[in-house]
């Protein structure tokens, strides 16, 4: 009886451990957000790192009171050194993917700033993900 109880306890323990292993190792996270300083009426960019959770997702929009228009953008540079920037309708995120938003690549473009962005202050940014929903991020304005 005692032996059977011990075996059952062990089995339950193993099942609990296995259940733990199949849980989402981590939800989507947004790290190191920062915005460029710029004058009122001009444009800025927000950079950050997104680490996706265990399911495929996509960034499909962004909004902020800091600017009249907020868009997802990507800069690409061709072999001749010509840079072009394109608005992105969606940015795909594979399971577990780490995606850096950095100069010369992906960024959130803030068009026609409602106020000057000065280093040291911060702005509110809402990122809209297809699965994760809306994530609100406090974005500090970094030095240029």
């Amino acid at each position, binding site marked *: 009886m005692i032996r059977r109880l011990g075996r059952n306890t062990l089995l339950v323990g193993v099942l609990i451990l296995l259940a733990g292993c199949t849980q989402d190792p981590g939800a989507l996270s947004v790290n190191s957000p920062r915005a460029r300083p710029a004058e009122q009426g001009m444009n800025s960019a927000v950079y950050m790192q997104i680490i996706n959770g265990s399911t495929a997702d996509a960034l499909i929009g962004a909004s902020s009171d800091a600017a009249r228009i907020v868009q997802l*953008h990507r800069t690409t540079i061709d072999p001749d050194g010509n*840079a072009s*920037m394109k608005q992105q309708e969606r940015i795909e995120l594979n399971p577990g993917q780490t995606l850096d938003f950095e100069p010369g690549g992906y960024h959130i473009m803030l068009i026609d700033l409602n106020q000057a962005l000065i280093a040291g202050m911060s702005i509110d940014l809402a990122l809209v993900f297809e699965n994760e929903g809306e994530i609100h991020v406090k974005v500090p304005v970094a030095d240029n």
Partner: protein
Amino acid sequence: MKYYLPALLLLLAIGSIAGCGISEAPLHGSPYQNPGSAPDFTMPSTDGGEFTLSGEKGHVIMLYFGYTFCPDICPATLGQLRSVVSNANIDPALVRTVFVTVDPARDSLEVLKAYLGRFSSDFIGLRAEPEALDPILAAYGVYAAVDPDSDPEQYLMTHTARVFVIDKSGRLVTNYSFDTSSQDIKADLERLVEEQQ
């Protein structure tokens, strides 16, 4: 006889090492093979007067063509240049950082001044009307065009994202693509500022 080949290789190795000390390493980026005078121009400046490139001999010039609506590549480049100039072991007064707008329709001198002021009050902004600007862009091999797919109200531009470097004698010596490291630019700048004209 069998010792001749290793001895010859040794001599060649010594010769090549000695040779490195004599001929200077090339500049970073894309150095020009036979640097000639940088294409000259005169344009209205954010300083209030006119800026003539050939009138700046004695200074090292870092010349960039961009536009203020750009929130990414252009400010990233200007931020890098400001940081390099302030960290380099040089007299910053011997360097001119010059930003020529490729978007004169939106970039007035006032807009340019406000934009550049975010980086350094020493940065010089230049603006010319398209008919005067286009031959200058062509002379430097700079491409600039409105992206036809972008919103006409908020149009974006494709443009050459290179920093052109002009030495103290007025020669166009190299240009840097966007991915050139600050360390490489700093090394070149220190060398070019030190150079005798």
